[in-house]
């Protein structure tokens, strides 16, 4: 089992590539891109080999309990504290292998794509360095056997996200977006840090995740502690996987180059939160009693957050004119699906949706990038610069439509199977309300994707003549045309996966479910359900209706009263503005909360520092000088000297001692303080003696 035991090689390779590219990349003929592609390609091959070994691995247990045993491998002791030894190790099971494949494949395709898309960029080499570091961090995250090592990968992807969103940091908007992403996720991470700590102690002072799951499921951890730990841990998920109410950073993150949006903000990093819940499922399962029938009053904290996210993000996708923003809100909404799935007990459905979504969403983002690269003069504005591109960009068009249909959940494409699994399980587990939310979300998804496809590829071409928004490449050509092979090949590959990825768990086979099954799922008795035609028909009908409504509205101008409703009805206008302003959450966060901390509160604290605390210090200094002056001028010169004058020459000595007090020299202060200290010492010793008696 070489490739399973040594799955750490998958991250060691790109991590080394990062160092090589950073220090030597600029001197290489390919400017570092070749190193990055080779390393991630190597990781992909290793992942495939690991997958093959995993599938070939024998199972243990019988019937319902049948499962492939996870592989644990410790590299070295990371740190220790007395008896507590924290290993730096990997834990490989079906979930890990699946993530390895997704991360390395999408990373590889994005790197190939970027050779064309980022060609001639100012910081081409650094871009590749950051991509390599990102892949390494993400692979650390998914292979880690401990929460603390997972946190390293977690923060690592956050760092890379920061670097890549702010890739064009000359413009303040981009660096603002980078900072916002980092702060928002960091806020969630503060909670996650506490969650990790609580669960560390609950788990008998161990960070080991497998052990944690076992303890949680076997009732070895007090339920209250478990709930607090799970809620805290989930804060990290809310931040990283852009769940309501911390989702606002993700749309802004589109300021980064499009391949980054595809890789980080759709296919991999943002699913880290979903992965965390799936990985620590024992904790969430036991804490929120996900599996209890009747469904613990139908409420699961995780599912509620996911459900809210599905709807609020999908609604926002309708009012965006920027194609990447539509896709960003779509990502938020789909992440909501995954989180909700895990919240209602659809473990397989959740990670299956993660799997399929990675392909079609990466395809959509890269397609949007292809459009801007070759069709719209580096603009992402669907209303101003796109439309009618299907003729000029046949491959981009075809792949984009396929991926959109997959996202909308049309049979038999990938998204259909995963979404169906979620809806089915939600219903069967008794979470009917969440199933309804899922269906509403499916309708909205289909509708906004219909709008997007229509605005981008059909209708009149609205291409303007203004210069590009991003100066990534200086070879803008006048007429829209198809992108080069480095761009279209990844699109085709991803489109192909968008079609077939779902078949791993469709058409009556359950390979995906079987391969990803792990010991946690078995121990928790997470239920699996067979495909059900009525549910599938329902979700399919909803999706078709969504597309139909969307197309009718834009193509045929149906639903007349709705058109220009914002011009006629103040209520519609208010609603539209509410959506345009993203429910005013950004105003609340950026202007009110951050603004007041940065402004009034910080300045207030500093004022206290300078005026009150330091003021007191200075007052003591001034007071001491005043006292010294008083001692000299009044006590010494008038009183003492008066007496001394009477007694004669001995005055000289005493006067000069006291006179030194007020000269402000350090040495005298020192002597003064030591004198005071000596007196104090005497007092203390006397007091202490008293106390001892």
């Amino acid at each position, binding site marked *: 089992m070489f490739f399973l035991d040594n799955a750490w090689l998958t991250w060691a390779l790109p991590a080394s590539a990062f160092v090589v590219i950073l220090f030597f990349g600029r001197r290489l003929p390919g400017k570092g891109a070749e190193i990055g592609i080779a390393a991630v390609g190597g990781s992909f091959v290793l992942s495939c080999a690991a997958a093959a070994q995993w599938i070939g691995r024998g199972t243990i247990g019988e019937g319902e309990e049948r499962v492939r045993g996870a592989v644990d491998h410790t590299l070295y*002791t*990371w*740190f*220790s*504290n*007395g008896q507590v030894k924290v290993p730096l190790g990997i834990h490989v099971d079906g979930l890990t292998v699946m993530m390895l494949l997704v991360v390395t494949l999408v990373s590889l395709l994005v790197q190939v794509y970027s050779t064309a898309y980022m060609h001639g960029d100012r910081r081409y080499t650094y871009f590749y360095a950051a991509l390599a570091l990102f892949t390494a961090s993400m692979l650390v995250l998914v292979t880690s056997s401990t929460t*603390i090592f997972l*946190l*390293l990968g*977690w*923060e*690592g992807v956050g*760092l890379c996200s*920061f670097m890549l969103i*702010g890739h064009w*940091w*000359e*413009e*303040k908007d981009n*660096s*603002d977006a980078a*900072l916002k992403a*980092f*702060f928002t996720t*960091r*806020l969630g*991470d*503060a909670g996650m*840090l*506490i969650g990790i*700590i*609580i669960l*560390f*102690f609950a788990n008998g002072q161990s960070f080991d995740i497998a052990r944690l799951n076992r303890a949680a499921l076997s009732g070895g951890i007090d339920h209250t502690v478990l709930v607090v730990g799970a809620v805290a841990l989930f804060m990290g998920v809310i931040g990283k996987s852009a769940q309501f109410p911390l989702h606002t950073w993700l749309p802004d993150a589109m300021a980064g180059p499009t391949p980054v949006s595809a890789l980080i903000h759709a296919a991999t990093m943002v699913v880290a939160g979903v992965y965390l819940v799936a990985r620590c499922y024992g904790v969430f399962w036991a804490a929120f009693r996900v599996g209890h029938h009747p469904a613990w009053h139908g409420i699961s904290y995780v599912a509620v957050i996911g459900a809210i996210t599905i709807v609020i993000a999908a609604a926002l996708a309708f009012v965006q004119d920027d194609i990447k923003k539509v896709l960003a809100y779509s990502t938020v909404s789909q992440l909501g699906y995954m989180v909700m799935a895990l919240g209602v007990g659809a473990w397989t459905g959740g990670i299956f949706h993660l799997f399929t979504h990675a392909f079609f969403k990466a395809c959509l983002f890269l397609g949007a990038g292809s459009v801007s690269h070759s069709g719209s003069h580096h603009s992402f504005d669907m209303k101003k610069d796109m439309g009618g591109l299907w003729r000029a960009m046949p491959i981009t068009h075809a792949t984009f439509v396929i991926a959109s249909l997959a996202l909308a959940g049309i049979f038999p494409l990938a998204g259909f199977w995963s979404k169906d699994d979620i809806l089915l399980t939600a219903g069967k587990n008794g979470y009917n309300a969440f199933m309804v939310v899922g269906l509403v979300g499916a309708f909205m998804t289909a509708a906004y994707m219909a709008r997007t496809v229509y605005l981008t590829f059909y209708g009149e071409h609205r291409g303007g003549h203004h210069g590009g928004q991003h100066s990534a490449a200086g070879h803008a050509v006048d007429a829209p045309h198809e992108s080069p092979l480095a761009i279209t090949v990844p699109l085709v590959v991803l489109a192909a996966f968008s079609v077939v990825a779902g078949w791993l768990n469709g058409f009556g086979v359950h390979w995906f479910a079987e391969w990803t099954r792990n010991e946690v799922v078995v121990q928790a008795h997470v239920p699996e359900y067979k495909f059900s035609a009525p549910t599938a028909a329902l979700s399919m009908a909803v999706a078709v209706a969504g597309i139909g409504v969307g197309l009718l509205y834009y193509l045929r101008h149906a639903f007349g009263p709705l058109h220009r409703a914002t011009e006629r009805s103040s209520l519609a206008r208010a609603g539209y503005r509410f959506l345009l302003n993203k429910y005013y959450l950004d105003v609340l966060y950026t202007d009110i909360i*951050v603004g007041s*901390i*940065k402004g009034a*509160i*910080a300045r207030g*604290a*500093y004022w206290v*520092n300078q005026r009150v*605390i*330091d003021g007191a*210090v200075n007052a003591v*200094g001034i007071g001491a000088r005043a006292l010294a002056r008083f001692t000299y001028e009044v006590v010494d010169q008038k009183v003492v000297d008066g007496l001394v004058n009477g007694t004669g020459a001995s005055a000289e000595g005493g006067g000069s001692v006291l006179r030194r007090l007020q000269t402000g020299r*350090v040495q005298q*202060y*020192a002597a003064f*303080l030591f004198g*005071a*200290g000596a007196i*104090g*010492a005497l007092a*203390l*010793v006397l*007091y*202490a003696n008293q*106390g*001892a008696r």
Partner: protein
Amino acid sequence: MNVFDHWALSGVIFVPILGAILLGFVPRAQETAQKSVALLISLVTGGLMVGILARFDYNATDKLQFVTDRRWIDVIHSRYHVGVDGIALPLLALSVFITIACIIYSWDHFPEPHNPKAFLMLLLVLETGMNGTFCAEDLILFFVFFELVLLPMYFMIGVWGGPNRQYAAIKFFLFTLFGSALMILGFLALFFKGGNTFDIPTLVHNGSAIARSTQVLIFAGLFMGFAIKVPMFPFHTWLPDAHTEAPTVGSVILAAVLLKLGTYGFIRIALPVLPYAARRWAPWIGLLAVIGIIYGALGSLAQRDLKRLVAFSSVAHMGFVMLGISTLTSFGLNAAIFGMVAHGLITGMLFFLAGSIAERFNTREISRLGGLLVQAPRLGWILGFCAMASLGLPGLAGFWGEFPAILSAYQPAQGLNIALFRAFMVVAAVGTVLAAGYLLWMYQRTAFGEPSAEFAAIHVHDVHVPEWIAWTPLLLGIVAFGVYPHALFHVTDGAVHGVTAVFTSRAS
């Protein structure tokens, strides 16, 4: 024991000051000779330190090693007793290597009024004071070295400092001296109550026999001496002024080593000698520590001056160190020592960078800077790296000072109020978010964007050769300790358990 084991530690302590005297004989005009001598002396010290690191028995980190114990001042029973264990060793190494980096950095960076000879002499005297403090096992010896540090730093700020140097220098001096006065009081009380001895290991043995009310009083004296040095809120106001006015190298030494004298004092003296009092005081120390974390972060957010911002961030970071100490647990103390080393490397680097930036642009006003990544990309990258390290990114050294400290607060030593410390834990975790805030906003304003119109035309030299030589070891250290924290934890762990053993039981 061979000769090396006997004398190496004394060598590390006294070679610098002897070197300073030697430097005094080098003619004033021969600056290169002066620098070479100073560098040589620091390297000899470094060589001895490497020998100590190599010969140290890492399986017995709780034992004092390289011990020298000789008669010194008989009349007050004070002995020349030095030695290192797993707690002192990393800090001693930090002090030795940071000094080398400082001498290399200052090669062609001597601030006005120049005079490298005097500057380097002070630096070497300073090193003797710092090294001695970390090795001293006798209270009077400790006190002498502790105070020896004051004068060179006073002159460094007062002579080579910025426009407001007089005020800052005197404030620094008096503030710390005030603490020292109370500290020596505590030492004297320990002498009389702890069996007429200043010997620290003996006092550790005798200390818990001191009457509890007396312990609490003595601890108060030690607390003032150490807390001012750390500095803990609300005794921190000397720090921003001292840092702002100090020359770059002074700031680096101040942040990297001097502040640790205070935290080291807590771990070496206050906690083990007075365990009962430590437990009584721990909640207050913890409270001031978390106030410091938030307060320092808010102070940093309000700053417009680069150096002052880093100075306030020190208050926050030392808050994490003190929080770890206040839990009286092995996790907390390990974290504290790790935090000291990490803070030494990272904040030391940040002050180097602030100095280098100020030198290039003649201003530290953050709003006037911008576009550093355009004009000096390497400098900009290093600044970004250090900012990330400072905000506690896992995989870099800063994380291992912060995270275990927060962790230790979840389960403080027996007898401490668990709910209270868990509240501290939450506040400290919020502090990590604020840390990201002030560091990244600083980075955005200085490094991102285009250079401001004011500096757009000037040529900015990217990182110089002496800067590379001085910084590379620090940067590598930040990565190495971050990736492999065991390297440091396994040095401190045994010794830390020796200190905390007394707190794991109820009796003391």
